[in-house]
């Protein structure tokens, strides 16, 4: 018994020593700051690899928050303090157009850059999106372009609306991603005007009225909602969305301009079950 005990003790000691040694010898592995994100695209060009990450696992219709890194293929390191910009282009049969997008800015990690793009439609075999990127490193500007697959979200729920207002202007209205819960949720959206095929400036000073309904449950609404108004600090429309239970909710919308004129959307009434402008949520 005693021998067994001493053998066991020495084994334990040895294993502890070994593991200590291993710990000490292990080289510091550079952790990927975007490890928890999904790599959507990696483009090899100009001696660099441009990586595009997202929380989502694909480019989808609606709001896409994208993270970028530029890898120096020779050095194997990631380039800091570069300047990037993107222009997604939809190549249709008869024409091509862009979509609302943000500038690409640096994040806390100086090798990670961030921006968003709002795709209005999915691609298909003949019509597809190209992601055009321009980046400048140490005064030298590079360009690259890559075809990307933009598809409808897996749940098929509507999170972006493209509409022509009563002012004959085309708008793009996108819901910001959220994790809905049974509570008063923070709810926000982005609104853009389609000035040209390529230019989608953000629209401020409008109001987006919301009326959440459950079509599967007598089309009932919920109390304590707040319409969306433009928050200049956050640069988006913000309001409150209250959801009284889980399930499928249709958030009926009405977009009003600064004068209070309705540009798009209708009231929900006994006769009119839903507005022509809406977002969908299911949880």
């Amino acid at each position, binding site marked *: 018994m005693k021998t067994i005990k001493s053998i066991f003790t020495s084994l334990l000691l040895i294993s502890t020593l070994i593991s200590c040694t291993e710990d000490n010898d292990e080289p510091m592995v550079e952790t990927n700051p975007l490890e928890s994100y999904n790599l959507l695209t990696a483009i090899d060009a100009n001696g660099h690899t441009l990586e595009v990450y997202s929380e989502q696992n694909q480019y989808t219709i609606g709001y896409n928050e994208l993270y970028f890194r530029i890898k120096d293929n020779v050095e194997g390191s990631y380039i800091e303090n570069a300047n990037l910009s993107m222009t997604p282009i939809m190549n249709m049969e008869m024409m091509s157009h862009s979509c609302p997008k943000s500038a690409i800015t640096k994040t806390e990690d100086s090798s990670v850059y961030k921006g968003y793009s709002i795709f209005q439609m999915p691609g298909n075999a003949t019509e597809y999106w190209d992601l055009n990127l321009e980046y400048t490193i140490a005064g030298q500007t590079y360009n690259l372009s890559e075809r990307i697959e933009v598809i409808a979200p897996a749940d098929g729920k509507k999170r972006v609306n493209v509409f022509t207002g009563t002012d004959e202007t085309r708008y793009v209205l996108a819901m910001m991603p959220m994790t809905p819960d049974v509570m*008063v949720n923070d709810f926000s959206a982005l609104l853009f005007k389609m000035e040209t095929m390529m230019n989608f400036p953000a629209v401020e000073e409008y109001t987006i009225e919301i009326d959440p309904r459950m079509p*599967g449950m*007598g089309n009932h609404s919920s*109390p304590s909602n707040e319409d969306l108004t433009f928050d200049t600090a956050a640069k988006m429309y913000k309001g409150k969305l209250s959801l009284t*239970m*889980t*399930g499928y909710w249709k958030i009926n919308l009405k977009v009003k301009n600064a004068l209070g004129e309705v540009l798009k959307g209708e009231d929900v009434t006994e006769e009119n079950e839903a507005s022509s402008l809406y977002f969908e949520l299911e949880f």
Partner: protein
Amino acid sequence: MNSFSIWPFNHVLKYPKISKMTLVLSYFLTCWNSTGQEIPVAIDQDSILPINLSEVIVIASNITRLDHQTHQKPLSTLDEYLESSKKVAMVKRGAYAWEPIINDMTSERLAITIDGMRIFGACTDRMDPITSYVDVSNLSNVHITSGQKGAEIGNTIGGALDMRLEKSGFLPLDWTGSVETGFESNNNAQIVGGELNYANENFYLDTDVIYRHADNYIAGGREEVPFSQFTKYNLSINSGIKVAEGEKLLVSFIFDEARDVGYPALPMDVSLARAFIGSVSWVQEDFFGNLNDWETKVYANSITHIMDDSQRPDVPIRMDMPGWSDTYGYFSQAKLHSGTHSLMFKVDGFYNRSLAEMTMYPNNPSEASMFMLTWPDVRTLNTGMYARDIMSIEKSTLTLSARLAVQGFNIADEFGLNSLRIFYPEMDRGQTRFLKSFSARHQKNLGKLELTNSLSYGNRAPSVSEGFGFYLFNSFDNHDYIGDPNLENESAVEATTKVLFPFEKLTIGMEGNFFHTRNFIIGEIEPSLSTMTIGAEGVKIYKNLKYANLYNIAVDGTYEITKELQWNGLVSYHRGVDKSGRNLPFISPLTYNTGLQYTSPKFSMSLTLRGSADQVNFNPEFGEDRTDAFNVVSLSLGKTFKVNNDNVYLKAGVDNVFDTFYSTYTDWNNIPRMGRNMYMTLSYDIN
């Protein structure tokens, strides 16, 4: 024990007064103890300090066997026993689980206990009043107290109802048992029960079991009421050990389960309603100093209630609504007799957890199910103290009592708290309320006449539904209800007068009470809110009305025609209005009942007439409509035999002899009551 005392208590002194009183209803001291051996003491007290404001429904008496013979229907449900009481009316949503009303007030304004144990229903739609989780087989009697007199068992406005469990006590009875069975023609109700008990001077063990099954009942005029079936079974065990002279350890356990219970007045049924109820108590005759009759009990109970609509052929949307209610509590009380004072002190407390869910399944199967918490896991902690002094002053008795309690609510579920914050963004997770009750009661004998006056004040916290309910559908007024955590406590000033004229053979009692209730809690329409339930008319939020007034007046009489033949009658009138004179819901119209009872040792017979005038004071705002007057006649016959020296009781009768089609003001959505019903029960006592 189903209204039968199955063993002969020959050694127990017979008090003719009590025998008379136990005919269906009787008056006792509130602290009357149901264990057999203490009855003579209680009777002594009774004669010195009669307090006539409480009512006892004797179900099984250890003193006399007359009670079960005189009760019209020995194996009837507890609900039917309660309905036969003078003070209790029952709200009916079907054939099962009726909800008691005392002084025109229901569950949230009453304190309902089982042997002093607090227990709370798990159904958000009040489909499981506490009275549905026991059976007459468990009980010896039910104490009904009006108004603040009920504060002994908890904070209340309308009164209290304590269901006392039946216990053999420490009597040299050895093994006893009985088997009983009953059948009712109207709904094919079958009742089978039995009990087996052992008792000696130092130990007793009582067990009983009962099974009830009923199909749909048929209303007057042969109209079947669909979804009125039920099945229930109940098992109880009671035991006691005499640890030393004057020191007893008692345990009790009840398992009660109902399945496939239909609620014809509601859009949903109940697939399961189950309760586990247990307690351990220590009873000690001498405490310390002059304190005696020390009793301490710790208890726990757990209720599961599964509401669903799976049996309904046509619903706008399928849903499940399970609910759970667990309660843990204790009380400790002692008495002190000093000169003309008879004092009682009690400390008590309970902790309750109430949680209820609602899941709706969309008709479109690809859509996610809809889920909400209708009771957001509310934890209630109540700690209270109660004291009472009964003073004999010459020919009168003055009773003073007080209860002080602290009640805290805490919402344990984050999901539920966030749900309620949709309505009340500033709402705190927890809150504390102070509750109190004071009561003074004076009783005087003026010659033969007994006059009792009382003045009381009491308040209560909102119920879980009133404070924290989330879209609770009320099919009576067709509205969804939302609780309000910021409600004020409801408080009532109550005045009662009772006069009793005990003439030679005729006894006439008159009783009137008045409740001025401030911050009366009731649901009021909130037009800005959208209904959740498909087909609901609107949404109501519980609010405090400035005040409401309730009046109840009753006159009752008994006349002893011969020693065996007795007449009794009762007429009562009720009125309830709020500040603006608006009628309150569930206020009884003028009701009356009268009956003749013949009782001899071998044979009994009763003929009763029950009725009500038109309900003229109703309020459509609360879903009420005018309920028409009705009269219903019932008849019963009972006979006692001896078979091999064992007692056999046979009872047969007809309820609603003329098959009248009727419903009363307490019938949810006017569902009609049972039509003609013939029943027979047979009990066999094994000595």
